[in-house]
């Protein structure tokens, strides 16, 4: 079963995305902080990670860099309300696999996650 980790400091968002992807046959876990996210990745690395950029404490950029250092195979999709060119470029340089801005289209998000899974299956 495909494993997905949702990281967002808003539990409501985590719960919604968890329910959404569970209905699509994903095994979904979520984390509401950067630290929590890294711990969960260490315990059981997911195939795909939906990662919020703006979080109190350790932010999404730091989490991204850590994850990509230790687990380069994990596909990371940045999900954020910030849409500056600098942030996008920074995330891409740090190895992000996509950058989606909120509010997002569920159809697109689902398609993109499926695509990442397909890429992993081919690799």
């Amino acid at each position, binding site marked *: 079963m495909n494993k997905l980790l949702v990281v967002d400091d*808003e539990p409501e968002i985590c719960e*919604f*995305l968890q329910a959404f992807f569970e209905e699509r046959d994903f095994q979904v876990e979520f984390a509401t902080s950067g630290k929590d996210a890294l711990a969960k990745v260490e315990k059981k690395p997911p195939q795909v990670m939906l990662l919020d950029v703006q979080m109190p404490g350790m932010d999404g950029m730091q989490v991204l860099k850590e994850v990509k250092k230790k687990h380069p195979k994990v596909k990371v999709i940045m999900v954020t309300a910030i849409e500056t060119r600098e942030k996008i470029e920074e995330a891409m340089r740090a190895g992000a696999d996509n950058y989606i801005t909120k*509010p*997002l*289209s*569920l159809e697109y998000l689902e398609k993109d996650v499926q695509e990442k899974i397909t890429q992993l299956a081919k690799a």
Partner: protein
Amino acid sequence: MSKKENPKKKINYHQTLRDVATSMVRLKQPERLLKMITRFIDRQFGLTHTSLLIFEEEKKRFIFVDSKGSSRVPINLIRIDMDHPLVLWFQRVKRVAGIQEDYLSRAMLNQWMPAASQEFIHQKTDLDVRRLVKAMDAFKIDLAIPGYFKNTLLGLLLLGKKKSGRRFTPSEISFFQILTQDCSMAVKTSQYHQSLEEQNIELACRIEEIEAFRKKERDTYYEVMRALAQEVDAKDAYTFGHVSQVEYLGFLTAREMKLDMSGNRKDILAAGLILHDIGKIGIPDHVLKKPGRLTEEEWGVMKTHAEKGARILDHLSAFKDVAEIVRCHHENFDGTGYPRGLIGDQIPIEARIVAVVDAFHAIVSSRCYQQGRTPEEAFKEIKRCAGTQFDPVVVDAFIRALKKEMKKRGVSCAIHKESAYLKVQEPSPTGGIG
């Protein structure tokens, strides 16, 4: 809750909500009321999900205004794009497929799922019923209601199941439809308000700027012109003082003729009188200052001053009429003048006045080669040319006006034989063409 109480209560909802909706249409920022509506539906109907979406004109997408219930969605997380199955359905399919109901229920989709119906819908649109099912299920909704403004989808009300397990009644659905319609109207009205207000402010600023600029331009130009006219006056030594005298005499005549001086007509006349010889600035000194008679060639050069003067003024739209006066001030009433040989009424009345007072002033002015003649002599000369060179009506008015003025001031014609000046008050200052 008994069956008897229920409809009564519903009617009250209707009335309350209709009132709210009506006032909402007039609101500039309907968002708070839209949120209130969402909460109201959530509480009163006891639904698993109530979401209200509005169209964002700028980004061409639908965003959640509010979402309530156990199956609510995080409103900042999700948007609905124009290619979302529900949007496509309400925007396009409804009309193409000729389906009457302005709502979509999960139950309807279930009915369409059998192969034949699915094909029917699929044929007429590129929409798959399954995509609609998926889209509705993603939000856990049972009912989707569109709000239109002039056939454009502007709002969407998404409703989950009743917690009681009951189905929506037709009157509830029609109530939701009216409500969603009003919400869309409110959104559109507020957008209109906003854009109209912005446009109005912008426009007012621009108009003010343009007006201020035009006025400044006009004033500056008029000042420059006046200075130039005085320059010409000074350059042409014989006609020193000519400008202000001509202006004064011209106004006497116009008043005597009861000429329409309303609006900016007065300023146009003043400018015409002041600036009529402005083109002489472009005439070489050896021609302009030549004592004695001009050769035919020199006379030809001299004659160009009317056109030259008009061209200086042509650059400013506010001076269009003035330019025409300047251009025409040497036209003769019988069509023998220059530069175009216009006849009678073809010549602007102001130009006909300029012609008479200009000639009069030239006759009474002393030149180095010619002693100025008396006003009486000038009158005689001008009368002789009435109907040929001059407009007889203008000539009559001019002579009448000047005689009156001289009598009033006790000025004898003879006294001023040696001087071009009629010692009368300075012409009233004119403040530019406005």
